[in-house]
Each structure stands twice: as structure tokens, then as C-alpha cells.
């Protein structure tokens, strides 16, 4: 047999739920309502050692290459707990690669990514327990009904049998799929599949929901209903949402903060309004006339003209001029 290049015996995945609590869980002094609950449950494995004083996601100088392609190139990112964070960038910017690294799908060295203070390389199982993930492509199992799709995820997240049905029902209700739940997912429309995938992700009550282009290929109404689901559930649970999209209007309307990624790096970060105001100030333009799309063009450049390959200052000058010209 060939030697497996991917996972050696040191692969933390090979062990079942590697050491949940060798050291006593770090007790952040912010630990809430211990008084409210006189008997804190002492099943350490039940809950990952999520840290309250850590950002939901932290990437430190993260890089990832596919062969010669440097898909992510020194990414630094912090997503605060409870926010809806949007990751924007042109095709091939490295958004999906970054997300796959955060979701433990890609092997990254220890110390590069942490989720609620849990290192993604060392505590994979615990990280996965707090994650809900909807990948870029539609991924419901078309041979199962909507309910069975959600039920599978309830099972693989160890929802106790007594609670499973009610939980699955709740998830289906939250995404408004109760009526279609008995139909095969293969008969669903794109928007319904997306909502079904949301239900699959929500059934385990994740703290961090990661959505890779949740509205790709959907009509405006379906897009709106997907975002309705996301914002309602977020409001109800206080979970953190990390989302990528190519729709600037969505990013502007729904995200608390945005990062603009280009060629594997963050080029700009901030609240949508701040990003627009910054660019307006830089150009001396009327802030009301600067859209998020202008910000996107400004930072992502027009990769096709080759302007992007010009280095340093000259490129900056040229870029600023061309953005200014567009806004005039």
C-alpha cells in the first residue's frame, strides 16, 4: 500500500474526540450565571472548552497552497462573537479555501486558526462540535427526504434519541420547510435546498455558522428568504455567522463587518458604512455616491487588465484615479 500522504498516525482525527479535558477547562473570569445555576454540569466532554474571551474565529498569518497555487497568502482575520461577518472577494480570491481551512477540512499547522479559542489543528473534534457549515455547492442528499437529511445531522451530532424528533421539527420550522419535509430533497428548488442545508446546520445548535455563498444561483425572492432565515435564527440564538457572497447589496444590508479579500489576502476590513466612507474620504467624493461595489472594485482591481500586476505606488495611484473617474 502507498503511504498515506494526508493523514499520518499523528492525525488528531484518528483518535476519538482527542483529550477533551486533560487540563481543567480554563475558567474565564467572565463565566456567567454560575449563581443562577447551582449545579453546573460536570460532563466535560459534553461541551467543548469554548472561550468567552476569544474571538469566534481568529486566523493568524494563514497560508494555504494547492501545488503552486497560493490560494490563501498570509490571511489575518478576527471574527467577533455574535456578529455577521462577510467575506467578499473576486472569484479565486481564496474565500472558500480559507473557509475550508477554518472548518478543519484542510490540514493547517497548529497556531494558525482558532475557533472560540480552540485550535483548529489540535482540537478538531471540539471545533466541529461548535460549527455549522453550508458549503458552496448545494449539498443535500437528493435520495433522502428533507426530514431525513436533517435527521442524519441530528444523529451525527449525537442528539439524544428522545429529543431528536422535536429538534428536527424545530429546525425544519425555523427554515419554513415543515410542509415539504416529507418530500425527497431531489424535488426541491434551489432556494429550498439552501434552507434545508441551513436546517441541517442548525440542528446541532452551532455557535458559529459558516455559509459559503448561501445565495449563489438563487432568484431574488429565494435569496431574501434565505437571509430571513439566517437573520431570524441569528437573532434567536446569538450565534456568530461567517458568510461569503458576491452580492454587494446583501453584504451591505446584512453584515455587521466585512473583509475584502483579493489574491489570498485581506485588502480592506470594516463595517460596510465605514468601508464606503473611507473610500469616499480617500477620493474626496460624496459618501452617498460611493457604493460597496465601488469599494469592491477599488480593492479587487480589474484583474483582467493586468493593472493588478503593476507593483506598489504606481498601482495605488492608478487605482485611486480610476475609481475616482468612475464616481465622477
Amino acid at each position: 500500500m502507498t503511504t498515506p500522504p494526508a493523514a499520518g498516525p499523528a492525525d488528531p482525527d484518528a483518535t476519538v474526540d482527542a483529550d477533551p479535558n486533560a487540563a481543567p477547562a480554563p475558567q474565564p473570569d467572565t463565566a456567567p450565571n454560575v449563581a443562577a445555576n447551582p449545579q453546573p454540569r460536570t460532563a466535560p466532554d459534553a461541551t467543548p472548552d469554548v472561550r468567552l474571551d476569544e474571538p469566534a474565529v481568529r486566523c493568524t498569518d494563514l497560508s494555504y497552497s494547492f501545488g503552486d497555487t497560493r490560494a490563501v497568502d498570509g490571511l489575518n482575520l478576527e471574527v467577533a462573537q455574535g456578529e455577521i461577518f462577510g467575506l467578499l472577494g473576486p472569484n479565486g480570491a481564496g474565500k472558500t479555501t480559507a473557509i475550508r481551512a477554518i472548518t478543519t477540512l484542510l490540514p493547517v499547522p497548529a497556531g494558525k486558526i482558532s475557533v472560540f479559542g480552540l485550535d483548529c489543528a489540535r482540537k478538531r473534534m471540539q471545533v466541529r462540535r461548535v460549527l455549522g457549515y453550508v458549503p458552496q455547492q448545494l449539498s443535500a442528499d437528493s435520495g433522502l427526504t428533507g426530514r431525513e437529511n436533517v435527521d442524519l445531522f441530528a444523529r451525527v451530532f449525537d442528539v439524544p434519541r428522545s429529543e431528536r424528533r422535536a429538534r428536527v421539527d424545530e429546525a425544519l420550522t425555523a427554515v419554513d420547510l415543515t410542509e415539504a419535509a416529507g418530500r425527497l430533497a431531489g424535488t426541491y428548488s434551489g432556494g429550498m435546498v439552501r434552507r434545508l442545508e441551513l436546517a441541517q446546520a442548525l440542528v446541532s445548535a452551532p455557535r458559529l455558522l459558516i455559509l459559503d455563498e448561501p445565495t449563489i444561483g438563487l432568484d431574488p425572492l429565494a435569496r431574501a428568504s434565505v437571509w430571513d432565515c439566517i437573520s431570524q435564527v441569528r437573532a434567536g440564538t446569538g450565534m456568530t455567522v461567517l458568510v461569503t457572497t458576491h452580492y454587494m447589496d446583501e453584504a451591505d444590508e446584512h453584515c455587521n463587518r466585512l473583509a475584502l479579500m483579493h489574491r489570498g489576502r485581506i485588502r480592506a476590513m470594516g463595517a460596510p458604512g465605514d468601508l464606503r466612507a473611507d473610500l469616499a474620504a480617500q477620493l474626496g467624493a460624496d459618501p452617498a455616491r460611493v457604493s460597496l461595489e465601488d469599494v469592491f472594485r477599488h480593492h479587487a482591481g480589474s484583474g483582467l487588465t493586468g493593472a493588478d500586476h503593476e507593483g506598489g505606488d504606481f498601482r495605488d495611484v492608478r487605482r485611486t484615479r480610476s475609481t475616482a473617474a468612475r464616481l465622477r
Partner: protein
Amino acid sequence: MSAAPVPPLPASAEAGTATATATATATPTATATATATATATATLTPGPRPVELRLLLTPPPARRAWRLVLARAGAMCMVELQKLRHDRTELYTRAVQPALWLLIFGETFTRIHAIPTGGIPYLDYLAPGIIAQSAMFIAIFYGIMIIWERDSGVLTKLLVTPTPRAALVTGKAFAAGVKSVIQALVVVVIAALLGVALTWNPLRLLGVAVIVVLGSAFFSCLSMTIAGIVLTRDRLMGIGQAITMPLFFGSNALYPVAVMPGWLQAVSKANPLSYEVDALRGLLLGIHAHLALDFGVLAVAAAVGVTTASLLLGRLAK
């Protein structure tokens, strides 16, 4: 929307405990918002469709070690059964080939008496071999299926759940086993209809199920291992075709090892399918077999298969 068809939770008792666990698990974990909302049923104001969330505020407790592996295997088998319930065509189409083997090959060779079977009709001798063959064909398909699941995102999502790769592969292997057992049942019925004198002893039939599960676990892991090496469906289809026939003809499914040339005897000795067939003959026909050896070889083969397939599964995630 207020009358959502959710099974009503007992408002007092169970909702009470739900809230208690919510705060308990929340102690080291939840954000301020979550804790705040967890104390009461969260009714969401924005949007046109207020949603009630109760259970979805609390992460489920973790299972550990072997209980986790068992639960995952159960989940994968469940998926297999659900799919079979929705669409049984595969069960029927896959019954055609074994039926033809038994009907044409079996009946003909029973007449010619060309193969020394130790006194039993050739059709009887052949039936366990065909059961093993159809189980193997199903299992070999699992590598293709896992690549399809990778391409469609289903596998990707499963890999982001608290499921160690070994547990995922074990689950798939057992699912292949369950499906094979159902297929084996179909072939047993066909064989019985053709007049093969099979045992109906429940203990022996249970043994048949165990052997088929182990054999299918091995062959599905073999094909998942190859999937992890070649990574694309097209290549795997080619390889799958290329290995199934040699595995079948290089075993004792059609003829006893004794009539094979020396080199083929060696192949047959190294081929887990031979052990599966031997055990099935012993159990179904009651003829002499090396049951303990067969069981041991198949169990070890399945364990080795699960290990290598799990080590290579990560390549499919990239």
C-alpha cells in the same frame, strides 16, 4: 404560524429541564446573548415569520469512544435503509445478474457435471458463490459513491461533523454490509425458488448475515481506499471494473480450489472472497468449511480495510 406542528413540549416539566441544561452547558460557553435568550423561549421579532427556538439553543451532549462509532454506524445504516425504502429499483436490477448466473450457468453446469463439487448439485454449490459475488459488487460500488458524495458536498459536510474519519468509514462499511445482506436475502430467495436446498436454521442465517457484513465491509473499504488514491470517479470506475472480475474468477465461487492451477490457488488463498464463499457454503449447505478461519480472515481484512480507508479519506477532503 403560531400553531406550528411541532410536537408540543410539556410546558412545565420538560421545558424546565431544557432551560436548566441550557444554562448549565452555557456556563463556560455561551455568549451573553445566547444566555439571555436561553432563559426563555426565544421569539424572534424581525422578519415576517417569527420562529420559536427552544431546543436549537442547546448543543447536544457528546458521545464518546465506541458509543460514538456505534452511533455513526447506526446513522449511516439508517441512511441506507431510508434510501432503499424510497427507491427499490436497485434491489431489483441488482437481482437480475445473480438470477441469470444461477439460472443459466448453474443449470447448465449442473447438467454437464464438469465441476467436481463433492456430491452436491452444481447449482447448490454455486448459490453461495453468487451470494458472495452480488454482495461484493454492491460493496465495490461504495468507493464510487463516496467520490460522488465528495463531489456533491455530502461527504464534505459529514467531515465537518464530530465524526472521526475511522468512524465515518466504519459507518459506510456497515452500511454496505446492511445493503449487501438485503441483497443476499433476495438471492437466497431466488436460489430457493430454483430448488437449491438451503438451510433455514435461524442461527446459521444469522451467521450468513455476519459473514456477508464482514465481507462487504472489506470490499467497500478496499474500494474507498482506491478512491482515496485515485480521487476521481472516472479512474475509479475503470479500476473497479478491472478488479471485480479477477476477484470473482480468482476465488472459489465458481469452482473448488483443488481444480485450479497452482498460481490461481495462490491468488484464491489471498482473496478474502474465497473465505466468504467458503463460510457461506458451510453455513447455507451444511458442507464442511473452515468457519473459524474464514471468520478470522474476514474480520482482520475488514479491520485492515477500515484503517487504510480512514487514513486515505482525508485526501478526498482536500
